[in-house]
């Protein structure tokens, strides 16, 4: 059973009232920050629509034949489109195959649903081959596109979908939900996850919380010349998800906030004092420049297969130099 998170009740009711009224758009675009549960929502909604005996509150029963097939991932009317394993893009052949299945009549006589996650990872050829189907699918077809970066979709895709927004829940809702999942430090985690509860839960389950301190220490040592940027880059590039770089960005953002006096709005509330100390070593321009640089490289690393070692070396050298230049 897929959960509906408490902060999605409104969107859930909205979509189901459209289904009941027979006014459901054939293209839905679910947008919102990472870690708020958009993908789970899409799956839960698809299941509730295809379930043969939905419960009174319109959730999937989890027991009928359709539900069993969906749990096994073999329901012929529920198609999932994701980037192939070890690839970052959804390619044209996958989309063509999807469109080919969608022109058939449905297996069970109801809706045919395709869920595309993450929609922004369709490359341009793939996205273009979806346009015709997305604009005018056969009857009872529902395409659900899920993305945290709607701006990266082409305008032609966006204009063919009805957008459904999933903002981060309120801090209260978020920390309530986190405390139900036995998470301590809910407040800090939510802050670090920009308010996205699922992301916060993820952070709690991995070693990021403790490693964060190491990464900041390493940055400080680097600046004081106790660490070699090349060696540190080697170490950091072994992290598959590029977490050190992500957190370096987060620190930089908080330092910028600190230098402009917005102490309340920083994310790394537990590192406040240390960040303040480092921030004083750099000028605001340098911080902005470094942050831009980090973000740009993060994006590059996610979208293409750049040499991570070189990429990190460059950033770390910039970091260690920036302060020095000022002193000189």
């Amino acid at each position: 059973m897929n959960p509906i998170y408490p902060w999605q009740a409104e969107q859930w009711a909205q979509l189901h009232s459209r289904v009941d009224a027979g006014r459901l758009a054939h293209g839905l675009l679910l947008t919102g920050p990472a870690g708020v549960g958009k993908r789970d929502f899409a799956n839960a909604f698809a299941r509730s629509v295809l379930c043969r005996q939905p419960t009174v509150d319109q959730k999937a029963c989890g027991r009928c034949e359709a539900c069993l097939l969906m749990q096994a991932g073999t329901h012929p009317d529920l198609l999932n489109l994701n980037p192939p394993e070890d690839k970052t893009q959804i390619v044209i052949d996958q989309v063509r195959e999807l469109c080919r299945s969608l022109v058939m009549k449905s297996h069970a006589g109801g809706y045919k649903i395709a869920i595309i996650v993450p929609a922004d990872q369709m490359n341009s050829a793939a996205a273009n081959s979806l346009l015709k189907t997305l604009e005018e699918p056969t009857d009872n077809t529902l395409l659900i596109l899920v993305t945290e970066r709607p701006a990266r979709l082409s305008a032609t895709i966006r204009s063919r979908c009805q957008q459904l927004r999933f903002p981060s829940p309120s801090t209260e809702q978020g920390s309530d939900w986190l405390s139900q999942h036995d998470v301590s430090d809910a407040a800090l985690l939510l802050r670090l996850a920009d308010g996205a509860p699922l992301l916060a839960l993820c952070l709690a389950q991995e070693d990021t919380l403790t490693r964060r301190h190491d990464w900041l220490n390493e940055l400080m040592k680097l600046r004081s010349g106790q660490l070699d940027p090349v060696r540190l880059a080697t170490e950091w590039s072994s992290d598959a998800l590029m977490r050190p770089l992500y957190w370096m960005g987060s620190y930089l953002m908080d330092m910028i906030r600190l230098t402009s006096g917005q102490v309340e709005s920083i994310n790394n509330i537990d590192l406040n004092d240390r960040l303040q100390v480092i921030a004083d070593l750099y000028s605001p321009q340098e911080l902005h420049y470094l942050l831009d640089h980090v973000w740009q490289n993060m994006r590059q690393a996610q979208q293409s297969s750049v040499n991570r070692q070189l990429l990190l070396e460059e950033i770390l050298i910039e970091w260690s130099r920036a302060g020095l230049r000022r002193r000189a």
Partner: protein
Amino acid sequence: MKFKIQREAFLKPLQQIIGVVERRQTLPVLGNILVQTTDQGLTLTATDLEVELVAQVGLEISAGGETTLPARKLLDICRTLPEEAWLEVQVDQERATLRSGKSRFTLATLPASDFPVIDELKSVQAFKFPQRDLKELIERTHFSMAQQDVRYYLNGLMLELDKKGIRSVATDGHRLAMCEMAAKTGVSDSQQVIVPRKGVQELLRLLEGDETEVEIQLGSNHIRVSTPNIRFTSKLIDGRFPDYNRVMPKGGDKQIQTDRGFLRQALARTSILSNEKYRGIRLSLDKNILKIQAHNPEQEEAEEELEIQYNGDTLEIGFNVTYLLDALGALPGDDVRILLSDANSSCLIENGGRGHCKYVVMPMRL
């Protein structure tokens, strides 16, 4: 589940249904076949989510149940057993054990509830039809289906039922093939369905050329054809087929009558030197003479003259020779009649023979 079966009785149905099990499966359970026990014996089901094949095997069952077994491995084991060997299959939870003589195999199973089967069809139109005739309907038209056309409703074979009979139509936008058969369909309003390309090819493989009757069921979403051994079910394409009657050329005043075999051979010879990509040939008609010409970019030329029955005006017209050859190859009977009007209008190829086939081919500008 437990049963004992002779190799041959198991091998044949397995071979018949294996065609829809694709080699590279994204969903592991689709690489399996569903094995269920019934009162009469076994049912074996294979599916690719588009086409489903179900085989019945009469058998005495020692213990009932259902599971799914890896299709190709099961087939390969059966095939390589010695002839007339007995195979004992026993399934306990997640493992299936196969024993035959001194051989022993353990296969991994997947739960039967993961396997998507097509339920009984809804709003069904059912009737019986000789197997041979259904096969003919498909054979005489299927080659004209489009391949991966964006007009998705052309990527299949249209079957139309009305009071008088059943009609199959296929077109790719350049040519059209139609075949009609009389039958007691029992329908009051005419009904159209489009069977996807893959389903058509699979069905053609199953049908045999004898008189036995098959039951055809048309549902709102599926077509089902039950032969004595195998039940075939395919999804339908969700679209409207173009109005083929408007494509049928009318008022063709130039009529050629000739021997089908001779014309076909002459075209086949000439086509050797036609452009490999466009396959264009030129037909020049004069009184009782048909001249066929082709040339290719290497400046090679072929020319052939054929005696025919023709009384009309002279006419020069170009065609894609592949389309003509396909139509002439599929047409029954010894004679062929071709109706033409001018160089820009399509031609109608037919003969008055059994099955009532008609082929329409658009001309080419040469």
